[in-house]
């Protein structure tokens, strides 16, 4: 086994916990290490308790570890709350001016040192310096990071911070930390990003030009990341008066011809459902990100969940084709965003991308290069493509179900669109023949859409026990299967990113090979499990669900599966 160290930094909101984490992460990243970091915070701006938990490794990691090797406690409460998570040989670094008898608690006067270096605000830098020193990082590693961080600040700010980092390192000099390791000297393995930022980059790469949104955790970060690029690309990000406006603006922009999206969380998505149906019947391409958090209603605004799967599958009255995707990693998020805009255009349907707070707010390192497409295919027609533009019919009945899409006022062809049922030219119709013609046409797209669906990724699919899940929890699920294998249980993992149209045949074939499968989901009822039952007739053996708003740990999953397995076999 190589490097696998978890550092947890805890304190009050407003204490700059994230800054410590980000400095550490940047240092690891620069040295070519991999990492995965989760953010845990309350729905308040100051006070309370929050933490960031960073797992550092020399090989890719996609989930948090439940054991903490180094606990950075910016206050006593952190120590009390998390001490029990300390792994054997673990160390606590406590911001304190007095000493402790407990040898596992290392008292460093972090704030005082910061003040000495020029200001209490640099406590983060002191803590980061101390951590890196404890972890055995070369002294220069923090320098580069601080330089990058304070690029546009004055010289003296940088200098003070360098001083602060050094004093942190100095304070722990000579301390032997079991989990210190030899730092590699390679280049960054990939890009260090949050999920939210990756979703924004994916949208950019897909040539998204309009985003309508209304702030809502945990989706706001996506839009904040996107807005950053407004001046440098043909892109408008507009804050709407509410989510209903946001989705209808996106529909309007898409209708007029630019790729458009919106992003929200469950409650906002609820308000968008009528608009989703409008995109459905008007066959307007649309990408909607629903970043889940626990509900119902306001629920736990800053926590994570996978409770909206069934809701997004069936949202809006009546039926129409849609895609539902759920990225399982940074790389897949980038790819899925590009595919989503592409498929939305190709099939003229809404696409829903399901992420969650855990995914959006976590940081990790990409494994594949992020490549912007060399060209964007728009799947639109203009007068030149028509024999007679006067005869253009936006909703012409075709075999594929996809009708030629022209843009309004971009030629002589009139583009007429109605959210009522309509005849082929777009005018309202109540005729039975038009209704059936259009319903069948829309649903005929499904056969093309099904071909675009990628089957779930299976790891060790021939195992007798399979763990199935979807979206952001894939990393934890895969690792838990590995843990089970290490303990002698023949386990594999089946993780979905492409959920609808549901890959029924492939799923059934996969599941038929195992003796039993477990659903691992962050919701109450195992929603995907029931969807699998519905679509394949295969029923999960047990559901390993978690709905407390906190992400899964691989060990936790493995333990719960093992308990069932021991029950089953004992």
């Amino acid at each position, binding site marked *: 086994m190589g490097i696998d160290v978890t550092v947890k930094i805890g304190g009050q909101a407003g204490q700059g916990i994230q800054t410590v984490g980000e400095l550490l992460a940047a240092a690891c990243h620069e040295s070519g290490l991999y990492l995965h970091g989760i953010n845990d915070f309350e729905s308040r701006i100051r006070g309370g308790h929050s933490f960031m938990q960073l797992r550092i490794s020399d090989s890719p990691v996609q989930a948090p570890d439940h054991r903490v090797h180094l606990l950075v406690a910016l206050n006593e409460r952190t120590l009390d709350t998390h001490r029990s998570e300390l792994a054997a040989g673990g160390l606590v670094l406590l911001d304190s001016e007095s000493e402790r008898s407990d040898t596992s608690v290392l008292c460093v006067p972090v704030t005082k040192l910061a003040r000495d270096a020029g200001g209490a605000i640099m406590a983060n830098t002191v803590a980061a310096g101390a951590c890196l020193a404890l972890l055995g990082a070369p002294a220069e590693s923090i320098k580069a990071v601080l330089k990058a961080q304070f690029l546009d600040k004055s010289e003296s700010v940088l200098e003070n911070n360098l001083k602060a980092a050094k004093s942190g390192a100095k304070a722990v000099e000579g301390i032997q930390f079991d989990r210190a390791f030899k730092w590699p000297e390679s280049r960054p393995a990939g890009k260090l990003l949050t999920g939210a930022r990756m979703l924004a980059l994916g949208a950019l790469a897909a040539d998204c030009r309009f985003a309508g949104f209304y702030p809502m955790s945990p989706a706001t970060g996506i839009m904040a990341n996107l807005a950053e690029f407004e001046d440098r690309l043909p892109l408008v990000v507009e804050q709407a008066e509410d989510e209903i406006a946001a989705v209808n603006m996106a529909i*309007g922009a898409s209708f007029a011809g630019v790729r458009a999206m919106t992003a929200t969380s469950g409650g906002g998505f609820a308000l968008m459902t009528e608009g989703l149906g409008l995109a459905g019947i008007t066959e307007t391409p649309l990408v909607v990100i629903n970043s889940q958090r626990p509900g119902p209603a306001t629920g736990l605004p800053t926590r994570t969940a996978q409770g909206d799967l069934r809701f997004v599958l069936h949202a809006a009255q009546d039926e129409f084709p849609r895609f539902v995707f759920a990225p399982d990693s940074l790389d897949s998020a980038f790819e899925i965003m590009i595919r989503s805009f592409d498929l939305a255009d190709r099939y003229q349907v809404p696409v829903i991308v399901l992420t969650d707070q855990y995914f959006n707010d976590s940081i990790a390192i990409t494994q594949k290069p992020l490549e912007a497409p060399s060209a964007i295919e728009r799947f639109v027609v203009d007068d030149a493509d028509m024999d007679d533009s006067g005869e253009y019919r936006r909703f012409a009945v075709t075999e594929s179900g996809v009708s030629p899409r022209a843009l309004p006022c971009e030629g002589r062809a*009139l583009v007429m669109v109605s959210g009522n049922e309509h005849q082929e030219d777009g005018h309202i119709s109540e005729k039975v023949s038009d209704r059936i013609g259009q319903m069948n046409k829309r649903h005929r797209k499904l056969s093309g859409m099904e071909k675009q669906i990628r089957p779930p990724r299976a790891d060790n699919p021939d195992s007798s026990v399979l763990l199935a899940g979807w979206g952001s929890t894939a990393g934890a699920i895969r690792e838990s299967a590995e843990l089970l294998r290490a303990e002698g249980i023949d386990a594999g993992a089946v993780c979905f990113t492409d959920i609808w149209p549901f890959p029924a045949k492939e799923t059934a074939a996969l599941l038929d090979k195992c003796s039993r499968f477990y659903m691992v989901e962050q919701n109450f009822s195992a929603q995907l499990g029931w969807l699998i039952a519905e679509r394949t007739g295969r029923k999960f053996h047990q559901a390993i669900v978690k709905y407390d708003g906190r992400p899964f740990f691989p060990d936790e999953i493995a333990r719960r599966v093992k308990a069932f397995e021991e029950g089953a076999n004992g």
Partner: protein
Amino acid sequence: MVDKDDFQCDFENKWCPGCGNFGILNAMKQALADLEMPPEKVLIVSGIGQAAKTPHFLKCNFFHGLHGRALPVATGAKTANRDLNILVNMGDGDCYGEGGNHFISAIRRNIDVTLLVHDNRIYGLTKGQASPTSERGFVTRLQPHGPRSDPMNPAALALSQGAGFVARGYVGNREHLTGLIKQGIEYSGFALIDIMQVCVSFNRVNTYEWYAERVYDANRAGHDENDFRAAMNLVFEDKEKIPTGLIYRKQTVPFSDRLGRPGPDALLREKYNPDKVQNLIDSA
């Protein structure tokens, strides 16, 4: 040259005979023809209701969306392509009821579209419930004692939130209405034209006769549309006299000019630049 008849369309009109909407339809056609805007250069966005069916009844590009949501759709479309000439047709329920929040926001954004509200003081398509502009005491099957809410004052609301073009028309004065619509389309920014429209099937109170006794041309009567205070006074005038005309106009910066786009090109028209995008991603 564009002619009114160029907007003629074969699709069967579904309004009741005698409905005030015909007057609006005609005024729109005339205004567009006068402004030399051919059907293929016109985009109408509408909500849901009798008013919102308007674009089906004249030749044009259209997006007939959801009840109450025409303004956000129009905002998105105009943002994507600032070259679009957008008219928005909505009912009073559509715009001031279900769509009330978007109405406020369209004013505040100053989105450069012309909004025609077919204000018949009733929900027509759903067969006669009180609308936001129905007066207290206006009895319907669902409001056996009339609505409990005071009627909305759309023009006052628009003025209160900084609208730069506020007009009131009446279907009984076709030419006057045509003039207002033309001015609305020519205005650079958000133009509200609240149009007193007569629903002959469900509104037995606010009839042609009723209006005929009350409506007058405020501008002709001396109202200065450049005077904000005068405009504010006008919209609170005694209800027994209903001023029509251009209530208020001022120069404003339209939404299209607030986007911070580098040039005059519509968003839609910019080329996708893979190298630039790749650079941005690489340095992100």
